[in-house]
């Protein structure tokens, strides 16, 4: 078999594809399917090319798995083994689930780069539409010699890529969709899951505890979305909910953050007041009491929301700044801050001094003695403030030019002497007149200019696209030579065929 050199991770028999029975192979880098009785694959996808997998709902008669590629194509496999169809599918799914994210990173990055290039370059985008979307050439061919930069980047650069923070609204981005029968569907991507894990380590812990021993992944997330934990306005009362523990842990985390106190003394509201009034003095008792007993359900749910928002924002912020610190680091850090708070006097003054100095500084009252920096020099700050304005057509000849040329002509005319012996013949003169009158040979230039305005802009645009597309095709065509592989040969034939069919009317 062709796959001998590769490591085969899973083999599933009796899988139909396009109504044909066959065997599905999951290998280290690709997934492949070959029809029964043949020893070559008719379907083969690299994992990196796969955008996502979809499975048919559990109740359906057909047990299917669909792979959607980045290009938008999709391949559907039908698991036909009657006794173990579901099990086979689950096995394939699970394995894919583990494999895909590994390749996703790379694919994503490439995809991102491609996307960016397309967005930034409208001409390229048009070309892409003309050639790839209309299936003139394949996407790989299109990108083959454009993405050189992306693939050949220095591996160290690749590793040092900037840590991307988490969107503050990632939970909001999981918009539930109604599935039409009283249910909600949440679409989770690996990114969202990662965001959830990074922001809420407690959930990650729950996940590793429960999946896959107690719950399937799907069940886990279903429970997550049903939980009071996710819906922040509810007060968690149910103890059977596995996430109530998370909520408690969060509470604890929040408390410990609060107890730790703040480092910047200027924002420490507790030590703001010098001498607080003793209990019982003062008039400001109009505020409702904050004890939980007196709170109505609505009030405490409002309070819960507020607390959650603070917590969420703090966690998002922390997730962004953690930057792959190991947990051990964190632990040591917290313990050292604990040490701080016990004997705060030794650590506080520097921060405090700096903050105080900052607070009393008037930079404009002092003489500047900072190193000179180069200021952004805008010639027309109006244009910066109001955005670009279409440039008016300009006369490039200055008045000085005009005066000069007038003087020059005057000078020429003053010295002009008609040389009558050299005058053209009458026939030549009349033909010249014909040529110069409208419709004449020499007036073609004017007519051509008219075409420029006569042809509607769409047609012009299309022409331009065709021109660019043909140019690109030709480039591909010529890059195939010398033809030394069957693939290239095929490509040459292909392009020639397309070129003749679609583009020859240009010539």
């Amino acid at each position: 078999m062709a796959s001998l050199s590769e490591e085969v991770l899973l083999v599933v028999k009796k899988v139909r594809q396009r109504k044909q029975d066959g065997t599905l192979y999951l290998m280290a880098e690709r997934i492949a399917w070959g029809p029964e009785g043949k020893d070559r694959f008719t379907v083969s996808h690299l994992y990196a090319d796969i955008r996502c997998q979809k499975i048919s709902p559990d109740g359906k008669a057909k047990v299917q798995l669909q792979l959607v590629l980045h290009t938008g194509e999709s391949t559907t496999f039908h698991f036909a083994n009657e006794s173990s169809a579901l099990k086979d599918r689950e096995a394939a799914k699970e394995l894919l689930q583990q494999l895909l994210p590994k390749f996703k990173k790379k694919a994503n990055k490439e995809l991102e780069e491609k996307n960016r290039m397309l967005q930034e370059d409208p001409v390229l985008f048009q070309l892409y539409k003309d050639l790839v979307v209309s299936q003139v050439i394949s996407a790989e061919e299109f990108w083959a010699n454009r993405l050189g930069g992306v693939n050949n980047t220095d591996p160290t650069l690749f590793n040092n890529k900037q840590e991307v923070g988490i969107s503050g609204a990632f939970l909001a981005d999981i918009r539930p969709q109604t599935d039409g029968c009283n249910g909600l569907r949440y679409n989770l991507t690996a990114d969202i899951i990662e965001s959830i894990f990074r922001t809420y380590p407690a959930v990650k812990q729950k996940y590793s505890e429960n999946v896959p021993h107690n719950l399937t992944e799907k069940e886990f997330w279903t429970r997550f979305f049903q939980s009071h934990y996710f819906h922040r306005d509810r007060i968690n009362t149910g103890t059977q909910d596995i996430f109530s523990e998370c909520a408690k842990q969060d509470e604890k985390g929040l408390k410990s953050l609060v107890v730790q106190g703040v480092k910047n003394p200027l924002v420490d509201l507790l030590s703001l007041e010098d001498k607080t009034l003793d209990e019982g003095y003062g008039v400001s008792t109009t505020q409702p009491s904050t004890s939980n007993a007196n709170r109505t359900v609505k009030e405490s749910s409002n309070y819960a929301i507020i607390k959650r928002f603070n917590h969420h924002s703090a966690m998002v912020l922390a997730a962004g700044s953690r930057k792959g610190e190991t947990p051990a680091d964190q632990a040591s850090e917290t313990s050292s801050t604990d040490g701080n708070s016990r004997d705060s006097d030794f650590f506080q003054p520097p921060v405090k001094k700096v903050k105080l100095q900052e607070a009393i500084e008037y930079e404009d009252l002092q003489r500047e003695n900072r190193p000179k920096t180069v200021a952004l020099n805008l010639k027309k700050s109006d244009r910066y403030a109001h955005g670009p304005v279409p440039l008016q057509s300009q006369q490039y000849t200055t008045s000085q030019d005009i005066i000069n040329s007038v003087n020059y002509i005057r000078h020429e005319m003053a010295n002009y002497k008609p040389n009558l012996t050299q005058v053209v013949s009458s026939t030549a003169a009349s033909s010249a007149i014909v040529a110069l009158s409208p419709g004449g040979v020499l007036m073609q230039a004017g007519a051509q200019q008219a075409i420029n305005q006569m042809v509607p802009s769409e047609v012009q645009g299309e022409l331009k696209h065709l021109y660019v597309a043909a140019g690109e095709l030709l480039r591909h065509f010529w890059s195939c030579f010398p033809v030394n592989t069957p693939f290239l040969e095929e490509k040459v034939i292909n392009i020639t065929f397309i070129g003749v069919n679609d583009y020859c009317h240009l010539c």
Partner: protein
Amino acid sequence: MKLNIEGLLVYFPYDYIYPEQYSYMLELKRTLDAKGHGVLEMPSGTGKTISLLSLIIAYQRAFPLEVTKLIYCSRTVPEIEKVIEELRKLMEFYSKETGESNNFLALALSSRKNLCIHPEVSSLRFGKEVDGKCHSLTASYIRAQRHSNPNLPVCRFYEEFDAVGRQVPLPPGVYNLDDLKDFGRRKGWCPYYLARYSILHANIVVYSYHYLLDPKIADLVSKELAKKSVVVFDEAHNIDNVCIDSMSVNITRRTLDRCQNNVDTLQNTIHKIKETDAAKLREEYRRLVEGLKEANVARETDIYLANPVLPDEILQEAVPGTIRTAEHFVGFLRRFLEYLKSRLRVQHVVQESAPQFLKDIFDKVCIDRKPLRFCAERLQSLLRTLEIADIADFSAVTLISNFATLVSTYSQGFTIIIEPFEDRTPTIANPVLHFSCMDPSIAIKPVFQRFQSVIITSGTLSPLDIYPRILDFRPVTMASFTMTLARTCLCPLIVGRGNDQVALSSKFETREDFAVIRNYGNLLLEMSAIVPDGIVAFFTSYVYMENIVASWYEQGILENIQRNKLIFIETQDAAETSMALEKYQEACENGRGAILLSVARGKVSEGIDFVHHFGRAVIMFGVPYVYTQSRILKARLEYLRDQFQIRENDFLTFDAMRHAAQCVGRAIRGKTDYGLMIFADKRYARADKRGKLPRWIQEHINDGSLNLTVDEAVQLAKHFLRQMAQPFRQEDQLGLSLLTLEQLQSEEMLQKITQIAHQT
């Protein structure tokens, strides 16, 4: 630079000066010359503090006999420390210019919590605990006991200070709280008592309002300060509330229960002492008979809380016979307590004046006015005699006796309101007796009478004339200064309508209106998309904010805002809010941007500055009126109307607008700073509201920005922010809003400067 302020040589520690600083110093000097009081309003961030310090210190140096001391009162601990740091800068400049180290002593004083260096005591979290613990280590009878029993715990810092600290005065210099602690650690002296002792001969004292305004503390700390002092109240826009708070008392059923326990403890202790040491009680009685209160000069550490009434009200007589013996006094307290309990058993709201209360108490339980007046004094004497170490436990009975003394001393300016339940929960019985001060002038009167110059200053004191009226004094100067600007760095916008033309307002009728709430949400959402870094939004009250946040959450507005910025929300828990604040600043710092939802009149709006990128826009949702249904407020409004001829509405609007101005003013802290100020309520457009904003904000509101829709506001804001983002250099300011010495001395500029101060 060295300035000449009407013949006075003033050292100013900067190379440049703002014109308004010069003008401010002129006014200040005139006030000091006239030995009168002044009200000065100058925008925040224009260097008010350094101007004050420069001028007053120059004055002190020039006329050492006229002004002996500067007492600088500020509101919060960070403010106090900032003042000291500015002072340090000034002093360094002095010694650099004059080449000699001057012998000025300047120091900050704060509570024990901020100054204590005793390892055990200072680790306590709350100020009250620290005070109590300190007292239990340093009270004179405890120290006397130690002579017989050396195993008792001791505060070696206090002992050391007591032994040698008083002989050696604190060397001249500038001492911040941390410096005092360092000094204390080096010498092994208690910094708190060192500071309290040193303020008597210090040239400059910086401390909190309470040390002058709260009679319970003022009597202890500030009694012996020289009359020829200049007193400055900085950030004084809320000074009337501080005055009122310090004189008001609330009594709940819980207070009375705890008080009952206290009285029982007292009783038991008296019994015990009677058996073991009856002579002590006899000695106390003898002392009280002879009225030898003065002779018994209490050691500084003994007095835990002094008399709650003002110095000149304190009687110089002997304690009346009915409460002289310890048992009688405890019996008296019991009777008083029972009476209060009976008063709390009411079904309906009662409001009465102090004389009415006194008459009633005489009719019901035959308690006379005179023993009531001595209640606080007598209790202190008893607690001292009984040698009770942990005085913090006796706060309830102290409160009751303070109340007794106050109610029998002042017949005017106070009201008693007994409410059987909270208005919001009429079914839950929670009786409260409010003894509430309505006249801020009572607490501040002795300050005005005693010190030759009192300066009241803040960034927001408009309208200026109302402060002299409610504080009942006659200023010699009243001036409001504008901010000279080379570029308009503040942009006040009044958003009166949503994009759907719904009028935006937080007034009661439309408070629950979804259209308004949605439009408010839209405003915040749109702003979150265009404003860089930090946005601070203020709501009129905590309950209102909770409701709006819940509503925004349900409508998905918060989710959309989260796409642009992180959201942090003030809670009623100060520790939680501090954390949120720090995270907010972190998010602004690292470029993610954040929104802080906060409450006007809350702790954040009063004490936290949002400089530069920490606050590029402030949105004030609604007009922050005080909760008007409160009976205490109603009583106060009535009193203001009858006594000072201030109409209810005028006062309410004034109060709301000063808080709104405080909130929006948080964002601008200097001329290089910039920020949007968005007033999201159509009522701000009215002349009576707008006219009460400080002049430096008012003059930037043009007619075009009075009733904007959300979209229009966004357009204006975008334009403003783009302009502000341009580089702003010193050269741009020079000659306009920033002057060199030469520019300052030009005839033309001096002419201009006279127009900055707006006299009223």
